[in-house]
């Protein structure tokens, strides 16, 4: 079994809601964290990110002016002087599947839908500490590998080119349905 030494981790939390920041701080401190920095908007969080170099970022999505999605995109700049690889946990009230996809495509490492629970937060932190994923850089994406499950049998249109299998173009189900009419 593994234990996380939270007292060696530095967290940055970003949420415009002071109550949620207090809850997050309480949870992290009771896990054992000592260094927890707080920002109430994305712009401040980005400054603190550069200054404090946190190990893990926990951010809300919906915030005025500069939101958590933009924060993730700013951090995931491969040419930046800062660290573009830090795990980002998005903690949000958004709970629709398409939102998860958008967050994933912005380079978010883990997604945690509110209401928050101690167990859910701990599990996400354990994931990013114990099972980091490689990073992928394409023309349009830089961030943790979005494929969590390796399926060597997958031959669909989204398979990456140049690894074990080349792209096999398959008509979508919609195209198949149209052509059969």
């Amino acid at each position, binding site marked *: 079994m*593994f234990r996380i030494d939270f007292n060696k981790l530095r967290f940055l939390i970003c949420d415009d809601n002071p109550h*949620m920041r207090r809850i997050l701080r309480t949870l992290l401190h*009771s896990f054992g964290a000592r260094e927890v920095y707080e920002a109430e908007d994305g712009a401040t969080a980005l400054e603190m990110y550069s200054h404090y170099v946190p190990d893990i970022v926990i951010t809300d999505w*919906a*915030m005025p002016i500069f939101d958590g999605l933009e924060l993730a995109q700013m951090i995931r700049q491969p040419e930046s002087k800062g660290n573009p690889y830090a795990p980002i946990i998005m903690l949000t*009230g958004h709970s629709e599947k398409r939102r998860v996809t958008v967050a994933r495509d912005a380079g978010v490492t883990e997604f945690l*839908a509110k209401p928050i629970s101690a167990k859910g937060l701990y599990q996400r932190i354990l994931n990013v*500490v114990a099972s980091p994923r490689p990073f992928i850089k*394409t023309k349009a994406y830089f961030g943790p590998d979005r494929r969590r499950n390796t399926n060597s049998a997958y031959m669909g249109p989204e398979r990456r080119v*140049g690894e074990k299998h080349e792209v096999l173009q398959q008509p979508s189900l919609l195209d198949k349905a149209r052509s059969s009419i």
Partner: protein
Amino acid sequence: MAKNSARDIEVKAFATHQVITQPNPLRKVLRRVEEKDMDDPVGRAEQALAGLSGEFKDWMTTEINRLSAAYVAIRNEGFTKDRRDELFLAAHDIKGDAATFGFPAAAGIAESLCRVIEHAPDLERVPAELFTHHINAILAIVHDNTRLDSLTVSAELNRRLRKVADEYLAHVNRDRPEHLEAILAPSIVPAE
């Protein structure tokens, strides 16, 4: 501690992408321990959260006052982008926080309100009652928590408001398939 030096980072280039691997920069915070030596960080955190619970009612009151003020501004002066955003953020915070604060039905109603704000094609044309019923229900649940939220009436209120809101949204979005799809898609949050 979080950053490896550039020489530790391995880059494999493929036709359309690069795969970048590096030693786990957080490996030093993981310690293997015997089961008997494991403490219970989650239990400790739950206890700490319970210790905050005495403040939840006050926090919830702050949240609903914000929601109420956001809607009063719209009722008096109409929708602008800023007022719309403030109403949405106030409802969205309640959607995310209220269950933690002990008001799960208020969270459900706030979610329904968020959907109306997000998916109605023209907020000026949304019947005012749809807003006021949602907001009044949240206020009632929070003000009368001990009598209301613990009873099935709040859950029923939540269910009916959601049904009315969804019917309205399905009707006004009948020619907007991308919104219809989002409205009909299931939430990723498991049901209570």
